[in-house]
């Protein structure tokens, strides 16, 4: 395997399941454990692997009152900085869970999390909308998450294959 292919295979594996052991990653990527450790270390250092977190279905946590909103932002790009400066201002807020620059009818897609509808609405009206570069906002509230980042959240059918065949 070329070096580049190794790194892609390693990140793909860890992205799906970061609980795989070093030995397992090495076996699947067909490299030694030492090479796997070095590759993961370099990927962490160069900002490719930015963290390890579990994918959680929050609906199963009782009494957890969180609301997620998806906001479409239209902005005026800034001289010399384009959209990056604006993005930097937005993603610094801890309420902002994701931020993407988009093609199409709006510029930024922002995911915001708050305790309730009012909190999110206040965040948008007091922090996002007043920003100098922001032209307009359109807020949509997430009602139900079916799938996120490749993981299906709704209960799947059990394995109904014949147990031995």
């Amino acid at each position, binding site marked *: 395997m070329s070096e580049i292919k190794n790194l892609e295979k390693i990140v793909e594996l860890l992205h799906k399941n970061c609980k795989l052991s070093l030995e397992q990653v090495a*076996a699947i990527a067909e490299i030694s454990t030492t090479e796997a450790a070095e590759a993961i270390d370099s990927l962490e250092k160069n900002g490719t692997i930015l963290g390890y977190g579990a994918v959680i279905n929050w609906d199963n946590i009782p009494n957890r009152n969180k609301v997620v909103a998806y906001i479409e932002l239209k902005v005026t790009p800034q001289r010399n900085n384009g959209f990056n400066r604006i993005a930097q201002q937005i993603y610094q807020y801890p309420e902002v869970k994701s931020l993407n620059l988009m093609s199409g009818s709006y510029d930024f897609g922002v995911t915001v999390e708050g305790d309730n509808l009012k909190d999110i609405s206040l965040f948008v009206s007091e922090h996002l909308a007043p920003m100098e570069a922001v032209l307009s906002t359109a807020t949509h509230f997430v009602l139900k998450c079916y799938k996120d980042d490749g993981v299906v959240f709704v209960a799947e059918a059990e*394995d109904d*294959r*014949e147990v031995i*065949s």
Partner: protein
Amino acid sequence: MTFNPEKMLNRVVQEVPPSGIRKFFDIVAEMKDAISLGVGEPDFVTPWHIRDEGIYSLQKGHTHYTSNKGLTELRCEISNYLKRRFNLSYEPMSQTVVTVGGSEAIDLLFRAVVEAGDEVLVPEPSFVCYKPLVRLAGGTPVAITTKAENSFKLTAEELKAAITPKTKLLVLSYPNNPTGAIMTREDLEDIADVLRGTDIMVVSDEIYAELTYGRHHTSIAEIDGMYDRTILVSGFSKAYAMTGWRLGYACGHPAIISAMTKVHQYGIMSAPTTAQYAAIEAMKNGDADVALMREEYNDRRKLIVNGFNTIGLDCFEPEGAFYAFPCIKSTGLNSNDFCEKLLYDQKIAVVPGTAFGESGEGHIRCSYAYSLDNINEALNRIEAFVKKTR
């Protein structure tokens, strides 16, 4: 006079032994939280665009018989596919018949070709159906023991030693269930060298042809002198995760295909119509899905083989299908006892190698048609069990 059904049964049917894994099946099916590595079908669901075409065909009212040999469009797509993927040329109208799974194609071939007194060579360990089907067709199955030191490939020497004046047919099944073995072009050339001077036919069960890792599958039909005498059998079950659709095909010499079609038309009429329409979509647009599944199987293959070797259950590297066939001799247990004790001790079901022939003794068949997480969990439990045996 009281009716006695036992007396009415066909003698061969009575004598064909029941599947050796039936008792495991019953126990595992009732066991809660058991992980079964015994499945012989993909965990993937048929890709949506293929299912959608099947559903659409029903909406359009395609609920009637097709021609006995199968939809013309499907046979053309099969011909295109075999040319595109495996460099094989079969005329869709005269050299192709669509069947109810690859299993029906195998059965048709035996019934079309095998007569009383004919010997049919079956390299073992092998898929459980070949020998019973040969017997039901009136022939005599002759097992050839393949060896772990040869990675369970059939060798020219083993083949030569098994041939007698009564030998009619050789069953080649690579990539192999249960061992995961493959035969390279060079391996097949050696087999062809032996067969060329004879009139022995070959049935090549290539149902796992798309699931090879590291090298592209070669069909024996491509080898010089083998094309006319080989019936290629394949299907949609494993590559496209279409096991439940029951669809396969056979390609070969027009005279043989015609004879197989004769049997097929009387017994079956035609393969399921909905499945055939779905299969057209699979052949036309399914290459990318197959590639994704193959990549996924490959990751699991590497994990499970590494896992067995780490545990100390020596596992040769399977290069095809989705089975690993590790050796469990180091535990001091035979295959049956290993599987039974493992099941009760750790609630893991694997299939004893002896279910696939006596040469499977000392081995177990473990499917890796499971998620990496399930394979991981299974390996942990097997390791715990193996430690207890030492």
